[in-house]
Structure formats: structure tokens, C-alpha cells
């Protein structure tokens, strides 16, 4: 029981971070019909912004983190939309997909070139202590990661549902033409979506790097998991991405503990295949019709 509880908590903590990246996937898809195949690298990069801040400029960790979040919003949000998505989108989805794949490679190789191919230590953000619950040793860091991720997603959900801007963003996602007729500044709403994605990627990166180390290739795994989580949960629902992320985090840990560490990587893929066959719209997604 204690073992199971520990595995569940660790799985949920990792899954919540995957969910942050997966939510970014779904937001961009809803706002601009763009599948960002560089999303994994978006999660990899902000950790290096923090390390540059602390290492090269000698900034305190929290200042470097805040600065990294701002830079992520500027680079991974605004610049990404202006320089990659806007010029490519009029040519269709496929050129944009290829452009994001190329962007991911560029980011990965650039980090390797300028910051070496080696993993870099990343300072822990929360106290490295444990407490006991029903005989299970629960890590404070796991609990904090879980709480921060869930708070961010909850805050985002509330922003989208309760604020005027959030509702305008939803209207834009559902039908941009009608939203524009109703006076919504569609371009601005889409830009907000990209900014939020940059913010989510930065939070995910900062939470996961103390355990995974900051490494140029981290995006390969994180991007794939986030993509699968978004599909499993439902590509058109934020809560779907949350469910997908948590589910994959827990399943990955359960598989490693009770099936085999060698086949843990296969578990999310098996889940993906089953979901696509049984419920293609995802666990909590809704069926969507599109004109082609």
C-alpha cells in the first residue's frame, strides 16, 4: 500500500508537469490549428535561460527564474508566433508542422553548440525533505511540483472561463470568423494563446529540470509525452490535456514498478493506440467536425 501510494504521488507529480506541456499543445491547436512539434524543445529551453542567468550573470535563482519566464514569453510566445507561425500558416498546416520540426532541431542543436551536449545540474526549487503518510515517504518536492502545476492549470482554466479576455479567447478558438464579427480582436487573442504557451513551457521546464537535469535532448522525451498526453486526453480540451498528462505520469511509474522498466516507454504508446482505436476524440475530448 505504502509503495503504491508513493508511486502514485511520484507519477502524479511527473504527470502534472507533462500536463503543462500538453495544455500548451491543445491551446495552440485550438487558437491557430497549429501543432507545435517543437513543444518538447520549448520545455527544454527555459531551464537554460535560468542557468545562463545564475551562471553567467550571477543572478539569484528566483530572479533568474522570473527573467527566464519573461524571456520564454518573448521568445517562445511572441517571437515564435511572429517569425514562424504567421508567415507559415497561410501556406497550410503541413508547412507549419515541418517548420516547427525544423525549429525544434534548431533549438536542440543550438543548445548543444552553445551550452555543450552534457546534462547540466539544475538547483532544487523546494525543500529536499520527506514526510510520511500511511507509511509512505512523500517528497516535499513532488508535492510542490504537483501543487504548482495544478494551480497553474486551474488558474488558466479560471482565466479562460471567468474573464472577458478568456471568453474572447475561447470564442476565437471555436469560431474566429464569428468572434471577429462580434468585435473580438482575434489576432490579439491568438497572440495571448502563444504567450500562455511560452509561460506554461517555462514553468514545466523549471519544475522538471532539478530531477531530469538540464539537457539539450530533454525535449525529445518531453515533447513526445506531451503530444501523447494531449491526444489521450482530448486535443480540444484543456482538462483533457490535464487528464492525459496525469494518466501518463502515473501509468509510466506503475509500469516501471510492476511490469518492467524495459517496457515503460511502450506503455504511453500502447495507451495512445488504444485511445485512437476506441475513442479518437480522447478521454474527455469532444468530437469536432471540420470542413476540408
Amino acid at each position, binding site marked *: 500500500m505504502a509503495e503504491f501510494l508513493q508511486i502514485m504521488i511520484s507519477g502524479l507529480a511527473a504527470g502534472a508537469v507533462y500536463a503543462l506541456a500538453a495544455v500548451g499543445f491543445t491551446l495552440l491547436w485550438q487558437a491557430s490549428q497549429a501543432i507545435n512539434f517543437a513543444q518538447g524543445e520549448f520545455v527544454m529551453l527555459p531551464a537554460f535561460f535560468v542557468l545562463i542567468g545564475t551562471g553567467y550573470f550571477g543572478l539569484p535563482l528566483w530572479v533568474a527564474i522570473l527573467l527566464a519566464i519573461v524571456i520564454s514569453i518573448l521568445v517562445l510566445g511572441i517571437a515564435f508566433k511572429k517569425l514562424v507561425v504567421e508567415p507559415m500558416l497561410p501556406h497550410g498546416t503541413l508547412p507549419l508542422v515541418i517548420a516547427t520540426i525544423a525549429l525544434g532541431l534548431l533549438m536542440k542543436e543550438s543548445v548543444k553548440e552553445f551550452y555543450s551536449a552534457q546534462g547540466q*545540474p539544475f538547483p532544487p526549487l523546494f525543500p529536499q525533505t520527506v514526510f510520511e503518510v500511511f507509511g509512505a515517504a512523500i517528497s516535499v518536492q513532488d508535492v510542490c511540483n504537483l501543487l504548482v502545476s495544478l494551480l497553474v492549470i486551474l488558474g488558466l482554466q479560471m482565466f479562460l472561463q471567468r474573464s472577458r479576455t478568456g471568453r474572447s479567447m475561447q470564442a476565437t478558438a471555436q469560431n474566429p470568423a464569428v468572434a471577429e464579427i462580434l468585435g473580438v480582436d482575434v489576432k490579439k487573442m491568438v497572440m495571448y494563446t502563444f504567450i500562455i504557451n511560452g509561460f506554461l513551457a517555462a514553468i514545466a521546464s523549471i519544475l522538471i529540470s532539478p530531477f531530469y537535469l538540464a539537457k539539450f535532448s530533454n525535449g525529445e522525451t518531453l515533447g513526445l509525452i506531451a503530444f501523447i498526453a494531449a491526444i489521450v486526453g482530448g486535443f480540444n480540451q484543456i482538462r483533457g490535456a490535464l487528464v492525459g498528462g496525469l494518466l501518463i505520469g502515473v501509468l509510466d511509474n506503475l509500469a516501471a514498478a510492476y511490469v518492467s522498466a524495459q517496457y515503460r516507454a511502450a506503455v504511453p504508446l500502447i495507451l495512445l493506440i488504444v485511445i485512437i482505436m476506441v475513442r479518437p476524440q480522447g478521454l474527455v475530448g469532444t468530437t469536432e467536425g471540420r470542413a476540408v
Partner: protein
Amino acid sequence: MLKRYLVGLAMAVTIGVGGAQAQVKIANIAELSGAGAAAGTVWKDGVDLAVDEINASGGILGQHIELMEYDSQTDPQNSRAMVQKAIDDGAYVLLGTVYSSSTVVNMLVAQQNGYPQLTGSEAPAITQKGNPFIFRTAFGSQKGMPKIGAYLSFGLKASKVAIVWANTEYGKGGHDAFVDVTKEFNLEIAADLPTEQGQADFSADVVKIKNSGADAVFAFMTEEESARFLIEAEKQGLELPIAGDTVLGSQKVIDLAGAAAEGVMSHVGLSADAPVPTIQAMDKKFTERFGYRPDHNAIKGYIGAYAIKYVTEMVGEFDRQKFADTMHGLCLQAKEYPGLLLDICWDQNGEVSRESFLVQVTNGQQQIVQTLPAN
């Protein structure tokens, strides 16, 4: 006027040709990217340092070394292609690779072509395949296992041990050698956990160890995985003593894992903290040049490059077959051959015999607890 110009030109060309020194090509195939970059890049720095020193002191048999570098990308098939490319490019002798999974594949190409290869790999299988052209720069992991087994059994008084190991050629070799040792020392295996190359999440592995009833852990993974495992172990409050081989207590793992590496015990073949003047001098030069301290892989690379110089000069010519023949059964003393840092012997299989060290990580540094004799 034209005559004077032509004479001048002829003289310049003559001086140019005379000034250019003949060069011998040495290939270094290493993990410069991918999962093994932490090991391969420091190996490369060790090689670079040695090659520059050798060139500054006149090269090998009067020829400067032209170092050709190839990135295996930590991919066995790619490493095989890179070894072939190095041979096609006219290399004299090969250095690398570090990852055993790559070396077991690419050493066949070197063997078929008759190219001596000095590797940093430690999987036992590498020197058990009868390849007359493979030579280690550090001993195989099987040599350290009896020493770790003795430490766990007599030093820690452990009776049950959890094994967490990399499911790679390197990891399997170490795992199998350690399992043999557990029988010898009556150590019960409480948990046997293979992990994947590049694995990021070790939470399930640590939970299983905590609930296995083990009273010590033997960890046998590569640098980044070892660091991630130690970070997770600390995160979950795993209080069991953790012991391992060279990698676990290496400077790279200490740098990556930080406080999580504190107290870790390991049997280290090569350490920058070894109380040996030649190693301390190398440590100083390396740190000044690269801005970080050398770990065992850097020292292995350094020794590998110097071994090429010394053995070639013993042979007296650039002959690959004679080079390999000379190395078999060769013992060299660091007093006469300082670039080798420690006295070293290669047996008929290219396996190394040398002193080693028992190391504990204290205050972010390797502390040599004991110097162990060669076996």
C-alpha cells in the same frame, strides 16, 4: 628582375616545405552528443590535452599528431560507421569509444582492418572476445567487483543488496560480474532493477529499493543516469548506503548530483584526487585549460593518447601489427613513462592491470579512503 623574383619564390617554397613537419593521423571516435556526451566530451578533452603536450614535445617519432575527431552520437551503428571513416581517412591508431555498447560493435571493424584501438569502455565482454587489436585504458568493470563486494560485505556488513543497473552492454557486464561476486560474499539480492539508457525518471526504481528490504544499494549506470538516480534517492529520503564502480563516484556525477552524491562510496580505477603526483599534475593542467576537473574518462583519454606515443616509440616505426604485438603483455612504469600516470600492464587480451582506489564523496569531493593493489 624576373630571375630574382623566381629565385625568391623558389626559396620561399623550399623554406615552406622544409618547415612543414610530417604528421601522423590519430582518430578519436567519441560520444560527443547523445546520451553518452557526459562521458565522451571529457574523454575528448583528456585526449586533446595529451595530444597538444605530445606535439609540443616533438610528437611521435618526430611526427606531429593530426587528431581527427568523430562523433559517435552514442549510437553503436553510427560509431561503427565512424570507425570505418577514420580508417578510410588514413588513421594510424584509433582512440575510443567510451560507451561499451558502441565499442563491442565498432571494434570488429578495427579488428578486421588490423587497426589497434584504445578504448575507454569497461564492459567485461570487450576483452573476452579474443580481439587482438583492442586495448583498454582502464580495467574492465569485472576487476572492481570483488573489491566492492568485499566492501559491502565486510565494510558495511550488508547481507541484502539492491542492484540498479543500466540495461546496456556496459551495465549488463557490470551487473553480471557483480551478481557473481554476491554469491562469493553470500550477499542476497533483494531487488534487481534494470534501467534504460537516457532514463530520466527513477522514482519507481527508488520506491522499489526502499521496499525491498535491502540494506545497501549497488548502482551501476552511466554518469547522467547515476546523477538522476542519486537525486531521486535523496528526494525520496532513501537512507541506504549506495556503492558503485568508477562512474558513481566520478567528478561528473558529483557535479551533476550535487548534495545528493554525498556519502556515496565507489571503487574508482582513476581519480583526479588520487594521491599520485603525476595524476595531480595532470589534474592541474586539465583544470586550468578546460575550467573543470577531470574525471576518470578524461584521465583515460589522456592515458590512451600517451600510450600510443610510448608504444610506437618502442616499436620504432608506425606499424600497426607491431604496435598490437608489443602491447600484449606489456608493463610500463609511470616513472619512465609519466604520461601513463600510474604503472600499468596490458595482458594478452588487452585487459589492464593497475592500482585502484576506494573513494567516498565528502563535501562534494572524492576522498580516497583506500588505495587497492592491482589485480
